[in-house]
């Protein structure tokens, strides 16, 4: 009887491990699936039929209709892998597969160490500043910017 209980217990343990393993390694979340073809107008679809015959011959039959999965990219929030659906030689839909960070069953926004920094009000003439962070983005605007002035002053 003892032996029987022992084997039942070990069987339960094995099953639990298998389930855990399943969740750990195989469970993926498919999100962010968008279909460009759906949102694009029908004219685009019909015109692409003609061009697709030539483009599929260009691709020398390497890309047949189907689903292709790219390499996984590591990000600070977990790995992402992108999947393409090919129809008539064209990429129509992109799916995003996510692999949440190790222990969490959900991803966390911040697993990163915050850089050490100090912040203070700018002193009247701080000559030490060499970089400027701001929201001005045009190259034209840059010629009159502080970053440019600092750069010029340095020469």
């Amino acid at each position, binding site marked *: 009887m003892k032996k029987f209980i022992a084997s039942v217990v070990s069987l339960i343990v094995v099953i639990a491990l298998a389930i855990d393993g399943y969740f750990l390694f195989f469970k993926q979340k498919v999100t962010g699936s968008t279909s460009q073809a759906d949102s694009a107008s029908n004219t685009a679809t019909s015109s692409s039929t003609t061009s697709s015959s030539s483009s599929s011959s260009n691709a020398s039959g390497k890309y047949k209709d189907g689903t292709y999965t790219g390499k996984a*990219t590591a*990000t600070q929030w977990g790995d992402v*892998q992108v999947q393409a659906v090919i129809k008539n030689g064209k990429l129509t839909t992109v799916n995003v597969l996510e692999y949440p960070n190790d222990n969490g069953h959900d991803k966390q926004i911040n697993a990163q160490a915050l850089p050490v920094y*100090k912040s203070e009000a700018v002193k009247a003439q701080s000559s030490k500043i060499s*970089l*400027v*962070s701001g929201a001005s983005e045009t190259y034209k605007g840059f010629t009159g910017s502080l970053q440019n002035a600092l750069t010029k002053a340095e020469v």
Partner: protein
Amino acid sequence: MPTKQYQLKTTTVEAMTMPFTIQAVLVDHDETTAENLTKAISRTHAFLQQIDRDFSPFKANSLVTLYQHGGLKPTQFTEQFQEVYGLATLATELTNGAFSAHYNGHYDPTGLVKGWAIQRAFEKYLKPLLELDRIEAIALNGAGDIQMGVADGSDYQWHVGIEDPADPQQLLQEITIQTGAMATSGFSKRGQHIKLSTDTPSIVQATIIASELIEADIMATTAIAMGLTKFQEFTESVEVHGLLVDQNANQIAI
């Protein structure tokens, strides 16, 4: 111990119709270092231009434009395209939809691409320079979004000024940082796909500090998109640091 004599060398290149400033802090001058630096800068420049060709929604043949029109070929489904697409999807989820890579129903990752490109260019071409004896620190500033670093064991500090949104010739704060990233988003400037919400005080400028620019950039955009109340709620569950400026010119440290 006498303090080291640092020499700052700044180069500005243009890509994506924006200025990119590369700053290197040198301990000493020598030809090999100068050569390595020049090479890294031109690689960085070429990389940024390639990203612009592939990701600009304003270029008829960019991968993004082709994808928008359903004309992206399987061979053009590049690793970079995949990475940006994946990051954009994650960013949208993490920010509860405040950060969006879809505009007018089209995929448009413009809000993510610059920060991503700067971080990747920095990691690929500039950071390795820190292994050289004579290079103490390096930074890449893409129109206000910065990824910066110092050599192992270096005591060099980057002094970064945060622009005053009311007067870009003035600075609000000075941040000292060795290794990390800083991104600033604002309302007044280009590429605003963001609509002001009227029920919450608006954030005129958001500066976020993080280890990596991809994150800092996403969070800075999110702050502007959410507005003050919602963003402050959001930061209760998410660790975000930086400086916000509201429409009444109040500075709010987070």
